[in-house]
């Protein structure tokens, strides 16, 4: 039951992520991306990671993709107004994609399919256990990543802020 459900959801994730790439309209692309993230949420629930599932739901589906959609709607891109991409950008894109592919293939080779990792505690994904682990064992990485996010936010505000004499 669980295995077939997993294959169904995995198929849907791959299907919708392909649609993200191949759809002509950028707004449709984003909408497919939303569905893709929703299938990820189902994956997390299947893994009994309720907290991660709901955070993925709120942060990615509820906030980040709303902003994506917001920007795309504001620009209202369509076939006529889409800027032509230069060949250099296309080449850079191809090289970047290839690098990602190599990394992915390399990481799947490192997997030991015959010896899968088994979760030691089934309830690790519940918010109580996750919180305890985050705030004791992984306290330093947790705090460092929070500073990283804060600095990124401050940087973005600083870049967006106009010089006072230009107003």
């Amino acid at each position, binding site marked *: 039951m669980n295995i077939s459900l997993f294959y169904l959801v995995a198929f849907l994730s791959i299907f919708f992520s392909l649609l993200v790439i191949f759809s002509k309209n950028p*707004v449709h692309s984003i*909408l497919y991306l*939303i569905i893709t993230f929703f299938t990820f949420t189902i994956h997390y629930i299947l893994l009994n990671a*309720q*907290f991660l599932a*709901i*955070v993925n*739901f*709120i942060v990615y*589906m*509820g*906030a980040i993709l*709303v*902003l994506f*959609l*917001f920007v795309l*709607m*504001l620009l*209202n891109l369509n076939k006529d107004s889409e800027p032509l991409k230069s060949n250099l950008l296309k080449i850079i894109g191809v090289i970047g994609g290839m690098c990602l592919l190599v990394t992915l293939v390399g990481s799947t080779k490192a997997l030991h399919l015959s010896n899968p990792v088994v979760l030691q505690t089934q309830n690790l994904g*519940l*918010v*109580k256990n996750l919180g305890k682990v985050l705030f004791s064992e992984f306290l330093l990485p947790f705090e460092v990543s929070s500073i990283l996010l804060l600095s990124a936010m401050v940087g973005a505000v600083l870049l967006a802020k106009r010089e006072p004499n230009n107003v």
Partner: protein
Amino acid sequence: MELALIIEKFILITVVFALSLVVAMYSTLAERKIAAFLQDRVGPNRAGPGGMFQPLADGAKMFFKEEIIPEQASKFLFIAGPSLAILTACTGSAVIPWGDAIAVAGRIVDLQVTDINVGILYIFGVVSLGVYGVMIGGWASNNKFSLMGAIRAASQNISYEIPMGLSIIALLLVTNTLSLKEITAQQHGWHWNVLYQPLGFLLFMICSFAETNRTPFDLPECETELVGGYHTEYSSMKLGFYLFAEYINMFISSAVMATLYFGGYNYPGMDWVNNLLGPLWGPLIGVAVLFLKIFVFIFFFMWVRWTVPRFRYDQLMNLGWKVLIPLAIANIVITGIWITISDKL
């Protein structure tokens, strides 16, 4: 046993679903009646005694109106918009504990559809998803006014989700759990969270006004600037769905406010009443009390709508980012200090 559980949940879901629809339906009448009361008029009184059948008449009118899908609109998304709006509005009720457990025919029945241990976050997620219905519908209409309404809805929702989340964090510091069932159980009698989190409640309430697009924050459908906002192009029952989703959202957010801050089904003297009436009727009184609280909140929503004028857009953003977020952060800090001190004592 398993079958009984499924039947029990099925009945509960059906009842909750039907109740939220009926409450939303009669909220439309209540809105007009309260508007009339506040403006010293009579209000709708032709359909049935005191206008009782007005919502039915309105519904029938909506169904029989001509349905227009604009030529240039994206057809699928144009239909998906209102469907999504009403879908997200209806899913929020799943984690709200409507009452204490009741004993029926030897079984203990929880009056809550599901008690997931991230209950608050689930509600928060559903609320944040609610904006997609407005955005998709506004964009698919292929109309400048609709698009502006959709963009306003998106930026407003994103902005007000932040103070809402921060006010919930302060509440979680007090309750130590994310499960709505446990939060309600902790507020037994008169230990309502609003007594410990008055500022948090105020912030949460302001944000729920913004999240449900109610006046004074109804800028996405601001008719003085945007014709009809995101639903300018909509007609017939699709428009009805949008308007209906707003009333369901109002009902759900009233229920959430009552549960999180006003004790849910708890009321002073409930132990005495429960002993008097037994394990079936005692909790049902609690359900009635919860609904009374919800109706008070719905009345408050309407009272504000017919009293306070709409904000200007820059005022809305200034209020969200420069007033509510600093206040919410201050609330977290004060709550943290208070908890540390009271633990040490």
